């Protein structure tokens, strides 16, 4: 073992960085945790890594049912009018909301609304109201269940259609939770060696928004970066490509510019 400056080799700094990403398993993980228990400076460094990593996380609106479940597990009797999950945008001025959340406020009247998912419980209604606030035209059907609780039907909005050769291939929708989906409506199903891939074509170069599978799954959840207005779907070898190979359809989204 070579002689080093005092402590210079004692802090597993590379391991600690990987540990901060939960990328270390087993015995290595235990060794780092043993070191952390004794080393103040590494605990501080870990907290600094966690701070940086948490900046990479974009707040999104959780489904209302999540808070319902938390209440059910933390308080036996949920009170009527209990605090709603994440009702308003986060207070941080440094957090940019997902484009899809913004987009819900920009939907216009002629867009189709249709039932997507049924949520149970009074809390769900509040979330649905938030999701449609500012639109003013979306109808939320409310039903009273047998137990006196409320079941409501909430809606997804079509925010764009992707077509090729005049044929509609897929629709892009945003649901009550602000989640965006690509829903294949007219695309044929590919063989297992190929996949559809979604692209943003707003910039000089297409940017991949993820692979969509063969089309056998009719609905795929996607993340649309803020300000996405033009998208394309291409056909790719399985696993996807870094650049589009064969563009089969294009469309425009009515998201904020």
């Amino acid at each position, binding site marked *: 073992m070579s002689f080093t400056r005092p402590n210079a080799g004692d802090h597993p700094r590379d391991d600690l960085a990987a540990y901060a990403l939960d990328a270390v398993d087993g015995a290595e993980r235990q060794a780092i945790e043993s070191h952390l228990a004794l080393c103040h400076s590494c605990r501080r460094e870990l907290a600094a890594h966690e701070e940086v990593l948490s900046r990479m996380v974009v707040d999104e609106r959780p489904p209302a049912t999540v808070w319902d479940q938390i209440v059910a597990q933390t308080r036996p009797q949920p009170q009527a009018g209990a605090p709603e999950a994440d009702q308003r945008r986060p207070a941080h001025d440094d957090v940019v909301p997902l484009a899809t959340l913004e987009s819900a406020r920009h939907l216009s009247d002629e867009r189709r609304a249709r039932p997507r998912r049924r949520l149970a419980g009074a809390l769900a209604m509040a979330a649905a109201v938030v999701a*449609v606030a500012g639109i003013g035209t979306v109808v939320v059907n409310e039903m009273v269940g047998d137990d006196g609780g409320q079941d409501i039907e909430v809606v997804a909005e079509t925010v764009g259609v992707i077509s090729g050769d005049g044929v509609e291939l897929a629709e892009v929708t945003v649901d009550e939770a602000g989640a965006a989906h690509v829903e294949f409506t007219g695309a044929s199903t590919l063989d297992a060696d190929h996949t559809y891939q979604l692209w943003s074509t707003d910039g000089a170069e297409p940017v991949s928004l993820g692979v969509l599978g063969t089309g056998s799954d009719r609905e795929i959840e996607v993340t649309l970066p803020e300000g996405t207005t033009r998208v394309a779907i291409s056909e790719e070898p399985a696993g996807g490509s870094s650049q589009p190979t064969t563009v089969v359809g294009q469309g425009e989204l009515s998201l904020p510019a």
Partner: protein
Amino acid sequence: MVVTTAERPDAVRGTAVATRHADSMRLADRQTGPMDEELVAALVAGDHDALAEIYRRYGGAVWGVARRVCNDRTLAEDVTQTVFVDLWRRPERFDPSRGALRPWLVAQAHARAVDAVRSESARQRRHEREGQYAPPPSPDVEAAAHLASLSEDVRRAVDELPSDERDAIVLAYFGGHSYRETAALLGAPEGTIKSRIRRGLSVLRRALEAQGMTP
């Protein structure tokens, strides 16, 4: 019926908490109301309103990281619930002297999401052998999809990183891959991946501090 915004309940019902802490309350940079550590202290005292307020503040961040890492709403819902139920049951695990609440909650969520994904991927591999799932995307496609999800200013900072450091961080953090898997995905030695992650995190920290984003 048409539901109007007038029927929306008040955004936060944390009045009791706010009043209780009025004496010691000071204005935080980004929010008014009780400080995070005061809310956690109220949790120790069994104040459920404090949990609701913490959820209102950070439920979106916990859900955001869980959903991205899990890439599955049901798994992400489980992770998000577990994080807040655990916080309620063992609030003393949060040590305010070590760091802020949001990064701590995000780290809790990330660890659970990675656990969920690793056991989920074991399940999925079994299904793949039965031909039920499409193969996963290639590493550069996966990394690009995660990068596209970042907010504008964070993406600017991340774009400053050398691409090998950026890909190592993004694949390990958002992809939920271990450093060994990340090394295999990127075709680089395992030790190199760990150094890239550390260097990349240091550069990111400086870039974010320069943007005034780190408190």
